[in-house]
């Protein structure tokens, strides 16, 4: 009798008995995740391309890694650097924990089955485990070659081995802290009163502040300046002790205090696991209310007139503000910004000084990036309506451009506003004059990318369909590069550089912008006007 057997098997409760179903869930999530990638040729191609980049990047770091390996077994091993790498790893874990929580798991649709089949603890553990293993696979691919080189440099496989072993619990701990942070952000977002967009900005700002602060900690660690930092006692010290204890098998000396601190790090990871799992369980039984404050329809303001592209553009703006996760592919901009302007973070006055420039470049990326990188994909549910409502999709594509340019104008206004306060009137005027050109080019180009590699795959929970990274990455990179070139040219023109150089610069930039904008737009119109539901 199945029922008796069930009672016997599930008789024992607790963490140990939670591990079997957790493993089953993790295995299945990974299996379905891998199948999803393999089934999707576009994703597969993107993956291959990324792998090429990664290999190339790794090869350039091999020599450095050889040195690191050698120094780790030398008389004065760079413990700070190892601890810094561990802090970075924690940050990666935290970031992906937050990210995972905000995008939701691929298997959101299966949750009713999971939650009514196994103990809640197993569900949380299983889904986190799957996420952890995926992240581990990805990171493993990223650092495989350098790790081998470290081993070669140290002339013993023991060094990379202990590093990997030491990294495993930290990554897990970071992931769970990320979940906690994500839950906190979500709860704050729901609890804080005010309009969605205001709450979003406030919480986004706080999050960004926390990220910057953490990067400073990592940076301070890297340059061995930990003593001056507030966190030196609470986090960096233990991480160094942890690194020293870990490296004892390869000849590094550690004090008993180090060993105790290292044990403390591991215990902290365990405690974090226990706490976060509890919090997550409590959180997901409390279904979130759809705020009634957000209820109410908005009609298009009369001032917008009757042009379809403007009226539709207004709708897209409203949709975006109601559901900011539509823009989550733009997170990449933030990451690039942080990695490019790393030094500006330690010196915020630089941010004020370059606000107009940054504003122009970001606005250029936002104009096309916000709505045009997957112009039909993210409205998949609407296709049968859209395709039967109008002979051409031109108004729809333009509407997306309009909405994106409105958002871009807000970004631009922020940047240029700071410039005005700074008294840079001429620069601001120059940027303002060029902005329409940049925006239009950005929109057209983005539409072209979106038409070339559209993405129609929804999450299993029917969430927002994100643009393909094959469209997002090249577009955003291109926008940043061309935007920066334009900024430099404007400044050079105002500063009175050599006329010949300026002529060459503008002579290349403007035709490039025009061509990519016009061709992109034309291609998108052609492609989407021929769209049928067979496309996916």
């Amino acid at each position, binding site marked *: *009798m*199945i*029922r008796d*057997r*069930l*009672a016997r*098997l*599930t008789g024992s*409760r607790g963490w140990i008995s939670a591990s*079997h*179903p957790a493993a*089953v*869930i993790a295995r*299945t999530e990974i*299996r*379905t995740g891998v*199948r*999803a990638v393999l*089934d999707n040729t576009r994703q597969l191609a993107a993956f291959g391309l990324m792998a090429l980049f990664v290999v190339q990047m790794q090869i350039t770091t091999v020599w450095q890694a050889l040195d690191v390996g050698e120094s780790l077994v030398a008389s004065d091993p760079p413990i700070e650097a190892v601890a810094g790498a561990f802090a970075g790893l924690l940050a990666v874990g935290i970031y992906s924990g937050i990210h995972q929580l905000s995008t939701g798991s691929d*298997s959101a*649709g*299966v*949750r*009713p*089955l*999971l*939650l*009514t*089949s*196994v*103990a*809640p*603890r197993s569900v949380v553990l299983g889904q986190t485990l799957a996420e952890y293993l995926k992240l581990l696979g990805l990171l493993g691919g990223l650092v495989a070659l350098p790790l081998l080189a470290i081993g070669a440099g140290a002339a013993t496989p023991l060094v990379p081995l202990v590093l990997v072993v030491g990294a495993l619990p930290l990554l897990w701990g970071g992931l769970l802290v990320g979940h906690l942070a994500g839950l906190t952000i979500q709860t704050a977002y729901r609890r804080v009163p005010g309009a969605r967009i205001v709450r979003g900005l406030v919480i986004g700002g706080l999050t960004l502040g926390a990220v910057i602060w953490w990067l400073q900690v990592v940076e301070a660690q890297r340059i061995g300046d930990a003593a001056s930092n507030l966190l030196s006692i609470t986090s960096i010290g233990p991480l160094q002790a942890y690194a020293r204890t870990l490296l004892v098998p390869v000849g590094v000396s550690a004090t008993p205090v180090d060993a105790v601190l290292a044990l403390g790090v591991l215990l902290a990871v365990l405690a974090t696991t226990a706490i976060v799992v509890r919090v997550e369980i409590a959180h997901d*039984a*409390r*279904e979130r*209310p*759809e*705020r*009634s404050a957000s209820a109410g329809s908005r009609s298009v303001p009369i001032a917008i007139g009757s042009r379809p592209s403007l009226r539709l553009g207004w709708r897209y703006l409203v949709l975006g503000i109601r559901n900011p996760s539509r823009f989550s592919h733009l997170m990449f901009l933030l990451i690039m910004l942080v990695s490019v302007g790393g030094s500006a973070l330690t010196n915020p006055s630089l941010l004020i000084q370059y606000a107009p420039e940054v504003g122009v470049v970001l606005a250029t990326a936002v104009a096309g990036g916000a709505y045009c990188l997957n112009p039909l994909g993210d409205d998949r549910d609407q296709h049968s309506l859209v395709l039967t409502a109008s002979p051409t999709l031109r108004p729809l594509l333009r509407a997306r451009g309009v909405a994106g340019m409105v958002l871009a104008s807000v970004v631009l206004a922020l940047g240029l506003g700071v410039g005005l306060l700074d008294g840079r009137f001429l620069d601001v005027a120059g940027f303002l004059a060029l902005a329409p050109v940049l925006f239009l080019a950005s929109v057209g180009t983005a539409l072209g990318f979106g038409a070339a590699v559209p993405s129609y795959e929804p999450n*299993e929970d029917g969430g927002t369909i994100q643009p393909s990274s094959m469209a997002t990455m090249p577009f955003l990179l291109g926008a940043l590069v061309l935007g920066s070139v334009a900024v430099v040219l404007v400044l050079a023109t105002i500063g009175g550089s050599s006329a010949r150089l300026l002529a060459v610069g503008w002579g290349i930039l403007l035709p490039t912008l025009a061509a990519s904008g016009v061709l992109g737009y034309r291609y998108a119109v052609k492609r989407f006007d021929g769209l049928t539901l067979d496309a996916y």
Partner: protein
Amino acid sequence: MPPSTAIYADSLVKQYGSTTAVRGVDLDVPAGCVYGFLGPNGAGKTTTMRMLTGLVTPSTGSAHVAGVDCTDRERLVEEIGLLPETPPLYEKLTGREQLQFAADLRGLDWETVADRSLSLCADLALRDDLDQRIEEYSKGMRQKAALVQALQHDPAVLFADEPTSNLDPRVSAMVRELLVDHAEDGTVFLSTHVLSLVEEVADTVGVLHEGRIVAEGPPEQLSTDVGGDLEDAFLSITGTPDPAPQ
């Protein structure tokens, strides 16, 4: 509560912000019957079922299923099977893999459940499609797979939310038969707005309207009370229908 009580609820209330989805539901469903939970769209059927299966916590009130408090999810899962409105399936698994996964989750060997599971599939004419990916399944096939998944471990109480909503009449009849079969040694809690379904399979009907049970009893009794068939009873209990468009 006596051991023969399968579902017991004491003034269950669920509030979402300022909306009250369920406003005080009492239930006392004996084991071994099909309980038809009937109500128009938005009455609160799904929300009640979510509270009974531990998916959401009641704002106030309490409930027990097979003697287990519904907030004790660790023990509750051993007693229940759930067929929610949207079939909870992995797109990228085949039907067979999905059923094996569901068995694995509960720590059951596939060998132990295979007989029962495959015969359920045969009853629903799903057996030949088991090696296809779920992503290729029609809505009806998904519904069938999810039903087998909810029944294969022989739960004490099966919760089914609109189980026939995507099915053609023939498959719908197969499902009805399975539900009645399960009530021989288990209990079925069936939520639906389809009158003919409860009329045919339910031993007791509770009519839910705006978050409250407004009538309860065997289907025949409800209709005689109003002096018509169950449809008249339903319409008179839940208010007059919208005027038909001319």
